[in-house]
């Protein structure tokens, strides 16, 4: 088993891209069921953590701006660290992520041990 980082991104700024209140309401139980399903397989690697929606960005010139991140239009909505056998296994779990229903995407990264 390896640890995998799943980052959920979607566009939080563009008005047209926002889900309706009803969609959001349905989304809450979908998220809870998705997390519950991962936890039921004992594949939650770390406790869940909520993240502030706005955030800040430090630019190359050390200038700080408020999030989100104009270049890619999408913000991190949240993240979870899970245990999975392989990328294939992690992808299967990510395919159930409710962010996809809201037009977002999931980035997956496997944890790597420092070398040496």
């Amino acid at each position, binding site marked *: 088993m390896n640890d995998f980082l799943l980052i959920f991104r979607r566009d939080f700024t563009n008005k047209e891209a926002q889900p309706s209140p009803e969609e959001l309401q349905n989304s809450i*139980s979908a998220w*809870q*069921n998705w*997390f*519950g*399903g991962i*936890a*039921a*397989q*004992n594949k*939650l690697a770390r*406790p*869940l953590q909520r993240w502030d929606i706005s955030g800040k960005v430090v630019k190359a010139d050390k200038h700080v701006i408020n999030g989100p991140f104009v270049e890619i239009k999408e913000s991190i909505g949240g993240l979870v660290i899970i245990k999975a056998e392989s990328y294939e296994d992690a992808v299967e779990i990510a395919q159930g992520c409710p962010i996809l229903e809201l037009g977002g995407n999931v980035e997956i990264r496997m944890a790597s041990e420092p070398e040496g």
Partner: protein
Amino acid sequence: MKDQELIPNLFRTEYRKIVSVLCRLFGMAHIEIAEDIVSDTFLAATEIWSTKGLPDNPRAWLYTVAKNKTKNYLKRDSLFQQKLSPEIQYHTANTEEFELDLSVKNIGDSQLAMIFTVCNPQISTEAQVALALNLLCGFGIQEIADAYLTNKEVVYKRLNRAKEKLKELNISIQQPSLNEINLRIDNVLTTLYLLFSEGYYSTTQNTTLRRDFCTEAMRLVYMLREHAHTNLPKVNALLSLMCFHTSRFDARSDQNGEAILYQDQDESLWNMELIDQGKYYLGLSAAGAQLSKYHLEAGIAYWHTYKEDTTEKWEQILQLYNNLLILEYSPIVALNRTFALAKVNGKTAAIAEAEKLKLTDNHFYYSLLGNLYTDVDNALALKHYEQAMDLAVSTADKLTISKHIQQLEKLI
């Protein structure tokens, strides 16, 4: 109360109080002396009351005799007196003046101190529970052996090992500080919950004893509530959970002691008074920001007090199970969560999730699959129940599974 019941009842309620006060006074190193003094006191009561009749106030009589026996012991054993905690020496100029404090306040404080002494993570959980049953609840070795379906020898050894360990660690029995309470309350609650479960899920046929274990566990949690520093939201949540569970005590087994599953229970046998108490403590548990597993479990138990299946009920139960798993994984919670998922999203969705659990050494896993496949694919359901039968150990579990197998065989 009948005379012959008086001594056992007083033993149950008073033994632990006097032992706690004496243990706190003498220190863990001299726990046998504390136990001897109290046993002698009860022996004297049995002898004298049977010949001379009952005193007007039996409890006061016991306290006086315990006080005198303590004083005599201190007078007789000067060596012990020198070793004793400085407390006695500090409070009294000499043992002639020494008076054992058996006030309500000191008994309460001593019992709280004892709870934190006994529920010590440095001794095994099993030993903590056995010690709690013996020292905090006043159960005799025979009763504990009956509940564990074992013999007195085993319990005696387990208790002695635990007491030796506490002596070795040289733990002082004192009122826990606020900091200690914060650090150790979770362990205390775990032990008390296990003590409760020992009664609630014990396979012994002795239902009176099982009920007594549950009542005693609840009394100890209630005692935590009575002290300001330990009257915490999660303590109320645990008490609420225990109230909801015990409310179904009369409904959960038949005359032969066989288990009756939740869905088959006669809800008119549920104890409404305990359900109301559970709701009251659940309300109190909502104070503060911390959400413990006891809050979530109490929430689940709360929704189970409504027998009728509604969408709201099962959605709430499912979300509580989700949160419980996110907080702390346990195979049995994962299985229960999947059962709730079937109630909310249907059997097909739940089967897909259930098969991901892969708890292939757990008979409950196959029973769940058997349940989910019933009416979806009865042949497969039967196969799963048969696998559950192969893995099940206890007679009660085997009986439940065989009932399902019989029903399915009729359908196929």
